[in-house]
């Protein structure tokens, strides 16, 4: 498919369509937030750039607004007064008025944002924007002095930065030229070519493991974990980039003893005991985001894991000689 020798955009897994639009964008990409004083995404005081777009579709995704590449509409129905200004300006004719509020046909919405501009209530906002590498570098550089003192730097997160590999590469290169520490937060679902091209500019990888069973992985995220586990090994053994493993604990999905044991064994035996493990408990903050996206929250009835359950899971990692803690 679509692959050119210079492009980092690639397909992995079966049946994934190549995101052709990304390849020719060069030094611009799609992001949805730049978070300053980010303190739980790597060492020191950091700035985290949240990329739009992720290839996986984890049922429990806590940042659903990050999944698509194009901007997505956030709609707060409580604020809507049904004035109809948005209906008049929508270029796609995707908005209708009913029951004293506006309704957006999500299939037709392109994220153009005309409705956001005219909404007098601030009920509509757009998640995501196109930004150039220059823009991003300028903003992350504002806190350069704080990185110096604290040993901090820049973290790319998302979404998955590896879903916009050329954009990620360009930002990372600029940051390394400026001497910033760089961290990449990824689920590792990318071609080896992309991984090996980008990793030389990464000082630390935060690597997210979703599930150890390939079938369950496919069931919950849309893809098998095979390339993810292969890339993890390559990053550690061949590219030798320091790594922290991250395990988002989702009750009822991946919090079984069997899965945790498989993950602990994988890290201890296939990677290295020196890799620290962070257990990140599922939380409910994502729920409101699904509402605003007018999507169904599949995990609406799931509760955060108990302290006892987390401790028991953590102990599995400790018993394999790994360092593990609850929380990022």
């Amino acid at each position, binding site marked *: 498919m679509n692959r050119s020798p210079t492009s980092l955009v690639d397909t992995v897994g079966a049946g994934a369509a190549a995101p052709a639009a990304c390849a020719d964008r060069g030094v611009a990409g799609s992001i949805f937030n730049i978070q300053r*004083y*980010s*303190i739980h995404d790597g060492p020191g*005081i950091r700035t985290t750039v949240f990329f739009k777009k992720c290839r996986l579709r984890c049922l429990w995704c806590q940042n659903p607004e990050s999944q698509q590449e194009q901007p997505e509409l956030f709609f707060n129905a409580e604020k809507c007064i049904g004035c109809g200004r948005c209906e008049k300006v929508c270029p796609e004719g995707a908005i209708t008025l009913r029951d004293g509020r506006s309704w957006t046909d999500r299939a037709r919405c392109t994220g153009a944002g005309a409705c956001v501009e005219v909404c007098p209530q601030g009920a509509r906002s757009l998640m995501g924007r196109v930004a150039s590498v220059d823009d991003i570098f300028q903003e992350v550089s504002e806190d350069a002095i704080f990185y110096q003192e*604290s040993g901090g730097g820049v973290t790319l997160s998302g979404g998955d930065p590896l879903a916009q590999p050329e954009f990620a590469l360009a930002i990372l290169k600029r940051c390394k030229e400026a001497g910033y520490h760089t961290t990449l937060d990824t689920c590792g679902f990318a071609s080896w070519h992309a991984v090996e091209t980008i990793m030389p500019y990464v000082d630390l990888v935060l690597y997210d493991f979703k599930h150890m069973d390939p079938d369950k992985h496919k069931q919950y995220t849309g893809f098998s974990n095979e390339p993810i586990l292969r890339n993890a090994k390559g990053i550690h053994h061949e590219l030798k980039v320091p790594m922290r493993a991250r395990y988002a604990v989702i009750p009822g999905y991946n919090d079984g003893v069997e899965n945790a044991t498989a993950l602990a064994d994988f890290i201890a035996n296939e990677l290295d005991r020196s890799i620290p493990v962070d257990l990140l408990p599922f939380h409910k903050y994502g729920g409101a985001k699904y509402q605003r996206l007018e999507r169904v929250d599949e995990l609406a009835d799931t509760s955060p894991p108990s302290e006892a359950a987390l401790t028991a899971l953590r102990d599995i990692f400790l018993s394999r000689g790994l360092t593990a803690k609850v929380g990022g």
Partner: protein
Amino acid sequence: MITTSSQSLQKPSTFTAADEMSPRIRRLKERLYVDRYPLSIEKSRWQTQAYKASDGEPQIIRRAKSLACVLDNIPIFIEDDELIVGQGSAKPMGLELDFYAGLWPRDEIEGLREAGYDISPQEETEILDMNAYWQKFNPLPRLGEDASEEMWGFLKSGMVLPPWKSRTDGPGGGYAESGLGLGPGFYLMTVDFEVALQQGLLALISDAEKRLTAIEYAEKDALERAHFLKAAILSLRAIIGFAERYADLAQTMAAVEADPARRAELEAIAQICRRVPAHPARTFREAMQSFWFIFLMITPSPTASMGRFDQFMNPYFEADLANGRLSEEEALELLQCLRIKDMQLNRTSGKAARQKNAGMAKWHNMVIGGVTKSGEDATNPLTYLILEAVRRLPTAHHTVTLRVHDGTPEPLMKKALEVVKMGTGMPAFIGDRSYIAYLLDQGVPLEEARNYAIGGCLDVTLPGKSRTAAVGMFIVSMVLEATLLNGVVRRTGDAVGLSTGKFEDFKTFDDFYAAFKAQLRHFLKLHADKNNAELLISRELFPDPVRSVLMDGGLAEGKALLDRTYLLENGALLNMVGMINVVDSLVAVKKLVFEDRVVSQAELIQALDANWQGREDLRRRFLEAPKYGNGDDYADQIAVDLFDYWADVAASLRSCLGGAHKPTGISVSSQWPGGAQTGATPDGRFAGECLADGTMSAMRGRDLKGPTGLMNSAMKISQNRYQAALFNIKFHPSAMQSDEDLRKISFLIRTYFARGGKHVQFNVVSREILLEAQKHPEQYRDLLVRVAGYSAYFIQLGKAMQDEIIGRTAHTGAG
């Protein structure tokens, strides 16, 4: 006796979070929380009697005699469990009414009752009688009756809070605080505690006596000096006599005490009070008691400073520890007893002034850490113990402020942040670099500069070598209004300002900006005139022999506080409130009116007059204009320029005490009454809405880039030119969970201070908790919030103030 930092590193590990206050401290603490506070007029009664008896004598002698009469006669008591003794009021948790800052007419007495103070009808009658006597010592009519029309318009405008109601009564309402010394209270200064602790008051008396006999009457000021020395001797003897009364009382109580343990404690108290403050303190416990007696003599004052307490107390502590006379736990208990003693010092003021310093405000500031006079790290074991005492007994007072320099040990930062994390807002952090740079710029020698302390919430003082006696709360946003209205104060309709032209007629932003600066200079000149008049009146009416003696060269000079010029002459300050709203407003006007021309001048004036009603679209545009607090140069450059301009104007306005006015930035809680007096402003603020808090802080909700973005703006401002520059950051507890989180905050603080930042303090409390506390105040009686330079009990603050605190941006570290 300087400890190396490697030794002090061992200290924090001694205590764990499991260590709690002792049963004694717990009992003492419980007695602090009462539903209604008794008002006492014992002190005024004795003062009035002494004043009446000394009619015609020199003012300073009358003052000394009135102090002596109070100390000889006021009822005293020792509470169960107390180790440090000495009460600031004749009643437990009471407060003593004063008359030096205004009188107490019937409506004010009623106001006090409503605010939770008990006053009997008989006391009320006596207060009204005393009003009649003290009228001749009331400074307010002296200022008001001689004021020019322009000055009267200025006083009435409330541009300096609070607004005056009449030429004779000023803003109305007097002053009440426990503490037995002489007023006035609002002096930002640190007396030389070391002299009292190390030499004892008898040595000072004997020095004064020698100087009195040696006076050469050929000198023009000889008689004044003689009066001063006589007053000093009278006062110092009275203080010793007061301590002896406590010794007698303790002895009497010991004789009838059934519990042998308590009997031994009372006997020890008796011995100590016979010894200090007359003689030099020999032990930590004697030093603590001596310190407290002296402190009672420099209060009532909400701004009395405790100085560099860890520096002058540590030698006693370490010597006792080495000799086995004292354990760390015992020292900790004494430090907590001191916190209790300070909590017992109650305070209030008249209705109008109560708002500007909400929540029983006082700033009894204990400064710890920093560098020694020779530039070494000054951290010592007591530095850690003082923080541990706050951790175990997190009461609102006394305040603790940590001086941070490049070599401040990281374990000390960690200890301090662990205390911050508890939500006390303490300690506040201040940067040695910026404070010392300010002092050097004022011509203070480096060694002296390194020894600075804090007076009030954040203003620099030199122990024994400076005193600030005039500081107001100047509402800058009212100057912006007067510029938009061609010199008319919106609140009163009086043309007190300059005629700089109609806003509609300005052709360029530069012209408008120049007009604003001219108005600002004009109003600051009026403020400086008011300061000078107050200082001169105060100098005549209220000489204070005690504080004057406890200043460097006090006896040698033989002059009262306001008759001298000090090494750091910061007697009069110009303090800004709401400057950031003005900055944001000017930025928005520049961008939208003069550059992008999306709105006409007339339209803006109409929208402001209408308080944005019907022009929500316009308000949104003004809200979206660039704002200070995001590191954006477009907005920040006006802030930089205006802060420099303010400092330049201050330097051009003379003080009657010598030198010029000094610039400072401490909003306390004046952003609320200041906001109530200001109409809608072009930063998108509604009429009456609270102004931005602090001095370096952004307007609530206008800083969108987190603490680093906010600091990036603040670091551009020349804070080194300021005496103080208040900067509050509210942190959600989630940003302070792990040790690693605390380390990151430590880096944040260090980076800010390394690049010109002067102060930062953290409010660590969740929005949910605050909302809950608003709903169920009875369950949150000890919920502390940092208001501005001091901590207050949240439930004691007014609803508006509570809302403001809830509204401040909660910075959550992302993760």
